[in-house]
C-alpha cells in the first residue's frame, strides 16, 4: 500500500466517498461505522476520489459489483475534514479502480480510538447528506 509522501493527498475540499450497503441504512439513518476501518482493513479505510469517480458512477459501480438493485448511497468526507481529524489520505489506484484511496487511521491509535474518530468523520458525512442518489429520491 503506497502510504508514503509521494501518494499523500494535499488537504483540499475534494470529497472522498464511501458506498453504503443496504443493511447499513435503516429508517434513513446511516450507520456510524460507515467511516471506520474494519479489523480486516488494518486501520486503512478505503474510499474513492470524487474528482476521478463521480458519486453517481461510484454508486452504479458498487451496485454492479455487489449485484444489488439499490443501496445506501454514496456519502463523502473531504480530505480537509479528514486532516482536521488527524487523518491523512493517500492515493492508492488499483487495477479496477484508479480513484481508490486509503485514509490512514493508524495514526490516531487503537481500534477503540479509530472508532471514535470514525464517528466524527461519519458526523461530517451525515451533515453533508447523501451525495447520490439525491436525498429526496427513493434509494
Amino acid at each position, binding site marked *: 500500500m503506497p502510504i508514503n509522501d509521494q501518494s499523500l493527498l494535499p488537504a483540499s475540499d475534494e470529497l472522498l466517498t464511501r458506498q453504503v*450497503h443496504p*443493511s*447499513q441504512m*435503516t*429508517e434513513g*439513518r446511516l*450507520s*456510524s*461505522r460507515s467511516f471506520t476501518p*474494519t*479489523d*480486516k482493513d488494518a486501520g486503512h479505510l478505503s474510499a474513492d476520489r470524487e474528482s476521478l469517480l463521480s458519486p453517481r458512477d461510484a454508486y452504479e459501480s458498487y451496485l454492479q459489483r455487489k449485484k444489488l438493485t439499490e443501496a445506501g448511497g454514496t456519502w463523502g468526507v473531504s480530505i480537509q475534514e479528514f486532516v482536521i481529524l488527524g487523518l491523512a489520505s493517500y492515493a492508492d489506484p488499483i487495477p479496477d479502480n484508479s480513484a481508490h484511496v486509503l485514509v490512514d487511521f493508524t495514526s490516531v491509535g487503537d481500534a*477503540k480510538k479509530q*472508532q*471514535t474518530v470514525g*464517528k*466524527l468523520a*461519519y*458526523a461530517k458525512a451525515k451533515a453533508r447528506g447523501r451525495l447520490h442518489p439525491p436525498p429526496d429520491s427513493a434509494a
Partner: protein
Amino acid sequence: MTDTPINPEAAATDDAFARFRFAGGRFDSHTIPLEVLPDLAAYRKLVLEVAKMLFRRRMGARVRVPKGFEDSFQIGLARIEGGSSAVADMPRLRPVASPPPQQPLKFAANQPTFDQPHYPDFDDARDYIDNLIGSVGSTGSVPPEFPVELAGLFNSFGQSLHEDEFIELGFGGAKPVRYDTFIRKKIVLSRETTYENAVDALFVLNGGVVAQGAIHVLDVTGVSFDFQPSTEFEFKKAYNRASENVRLVGTGLYDKNERLRRLLSVNVIYSEGGATQPFELRLEEIRSTPAGWYDDENPAPCPAAIEAMRCLLVDVSMQPVPLPHLYPLPSGGIAAEWTIGEWEASVEVDETGSQMTLNSVNTNTGEDVDMVIDLPSTKLMSQFMTFMNAMSTDEETPDAN
C-alpha cells in the same frame, strides 16, 4: 386533494356488487393503504345488518332471517384500479360448496350444494345505504325513519378516512354518493350520544392497575383516561415509564362536542425519538443478512450476538431511553446506535455474544466515553444507564434521531 374521477367505463366490471372510488389525501397516490381495508369489511357487515332489517320489513317483524342468509352474502375485493384516485371493485362471491352429508348413496346427494337462494335484500340494502348517505349529504340531516340500531354500524365503516378523504359509493352508476367523516359522524350521532373516531394526541403516562392490565393516562388538560395495551410487554413498558409524555394513536369514543370520552384501542408512541421500527422486526432483518454482505468473505450476523442484543433491548425498552437503530457488523457482531444531541453513541455485541463495547463521542467537543461489559452481567442495565447518563448530563431528556 385531487378529485378528478377516473374513467368509469374503464373501471367497470359487470358483476361488481359495489364499486367504491377512494379520493383525496392518501388516495391521490392511486393506491388504497392497507389500514383502509377494515372499512371494506365493515361495509359488508353494514350491508348485512341493513339487509336483515329489510328482510323483516318484507316478511314481517317476527320472521327470523332464514338459515344461510348471512353466509349467502360474501363480497370480495376483485381489483383496485388507479387513476387520480383509486377504485375498488367488490363482486359478490359464490358460497363455498359444503360437503355432502353422510347419507345413503343417492345420485343427488353427492353434488355440492352450490345453489343458495338469492335474496334481493342485499341489493336493496346497498341501495338503502347509498340513498341514506346521499340524503344526509344533500339535506344535512338523517331521515327520521332511519333505525336507531343501525347508526352504530357506521362507526366502523369509514373510520380510517382522514378529513380530506372520501369514498364515492356507487361509482360509475347512475347516482354515486359521497361518504366522508362528516357524514359518518352525522349518521352515528343522529341516534347515539358518542361516535368512534381517530385518536392522535399527547398524554402523560400515569401508572395503571396490574390486575386489570389497564394503563392510566392524563390528557393535556389533566383529564384521566384508561386503556389496555395489547400485550403484556407493552403494558409493562407503559407502566414502568409513568410520568413520561407520549403520543397515543388509535381509536376513541367522542361526544357531539368532539370531546374524547373513552380510549378504545390505542398504540403508544414514545416521544424520545430514535428508531420507530419495532426492534424485533429489525433484528429479524439483520438475522437474514447473508454472509459476504460486506466484503464477500465476512460472516453472517451471529445468532448469539443477535440474542444478546435482543435481551439488552427488552430491558432498554423499559427505560426512558430512545430505541436505537440496529446494524450488522462485518465481524458477525451487531451494533445499536443512538444520535443524542451532539453525541454519537453505540453499543456493539461481538460475534461470540459474550462482550459488549460501549462507545460515544461528542461530535462538537470530541469528548468520548468508553466501556466494556462482559456478558452475562447482572449489572448490565445499571452500567448501560451510567453510559447513557454520561451523555445527557446537560440535557434533561435525551432527544434522539
